[in-house]
């Protein structure tokens, strides 16, 4: 997990997304424990409140849950949930940007389709 303090993205969001990536990649499997607030805060030298905010985002979305006295664990079914969420975001983050840039460069719809097909074949 990488935190870029110079990024446009708020740090708590980077933490949430970093953990999501780790869960999607299988680094944290379902029902396994994720790093504690203290560990995250000390490791990235960020205020614990920021770390808490990031983890709370995941907890609110039902991706992780709290076991009293033990820490935060990945919910069963979290990977499925994340995939759904990321697919929705995929359109906003990539397709909309792709089309906007393509319009600026006057790339036609068929040209883009050809590019995508080419990309998949590689």
């Amino acid at each position: 997990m990488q935190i870029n303090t110079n990024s446009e993205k708020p740090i708590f969001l980077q933490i949430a997304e970093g953990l999501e990536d780790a869960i999607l990649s299988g680094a944290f499997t379902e029902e396994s424990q994720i790093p504690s607030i203290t560990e995250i805060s000390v490791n990235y030298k960020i205020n614990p409140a920021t770390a808490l905010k990031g983890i709370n985002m995941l907890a609110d979305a039902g991706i992780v849950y709290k076991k009293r006295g033990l820490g935060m664990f990945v919910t069963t079914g979290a990977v499925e949930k994340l995939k759904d969420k990321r697919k929705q975001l995929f359109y906003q983050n990539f397709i909309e940007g792709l089309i906007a840039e393509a319009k600026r460069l006057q790339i036609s719809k068929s040209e883009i389709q050809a590019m995508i097909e080419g990309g998949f074949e590689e």
Partner: protein
Amino acid sequence: MSIEVKNITKHYGKTCALNNVSLTFADNKIYGLLGRNGAGKSTLLNIISNRIFADSGTISIDGMPALENDAAIGRLYAMGEKTYYPESMRIKEVFKWTKLFYPQFDDAFARSLAEQFGLKLNKKIKSLSTGYLTIFKLVVALSVNTPYILLDEPVLGLDANNRDLFYRILLEKYSNNPFTIIISTHLIEEVANLIEDVVIIKEGQIICSEAREQLLANSYSVAGSAIAVDAYTAGKKLLGCEMLTGLKTAYIMGQPDCVTAGELEFAKIDLQKLFIQLTNA
């Protein structure tokens, strides 16, 4: 539970070091007290810790007036830029006496910190280098366990490794058992993500005291051709500008309005940049 600073004014001869300063340090938060050289940071910390006296105004700690009140000032430990322990005292003796003055002082923790930093307990204070003098004071400050810790330039003379170690220990301790920390420093980038609230002091006045996130969310930069930027910034709260042959970057308080955006480029400002813009003459 908080430190309340009310209408504090302090003059040194004819120069006004603090001008009617009022603010609150709430409990269990990490504060960054930022200001340029001579802005009044140390003066404020020294007044809070009863080391110097204000011309007027009051300090109260957890509801108790702090002026000449052992019970109130005993709730804080202030690490100053200077060293106030007798020169011929050994580190372990300082630990012993500190335990007497602050019964909550954790001797075992202090010893383990000293070991992590490589600070030898048998050394006399006068034999310590600048860096180790800072380390020594930090070790005491991190072990006294008072609800309020005031750190004036806590990383003075520390190398990168020791600064890193200090921030880690501080965060670990804070995150396991929160207390209030007020850090006054010039190294803004290093503490930017550590602190929760920012207090900026300029020429003896508090110009900003709010959550870091809120402060940063409420400021942005806009870049583009000078004409477009000037047109955009008209009527907005402009902090400052930078010019680069025809290209202009303006720093603005508030939220960007996307309607007039066009060819302009918006970005957020980091704490150090914002600080420079806010405190430029």
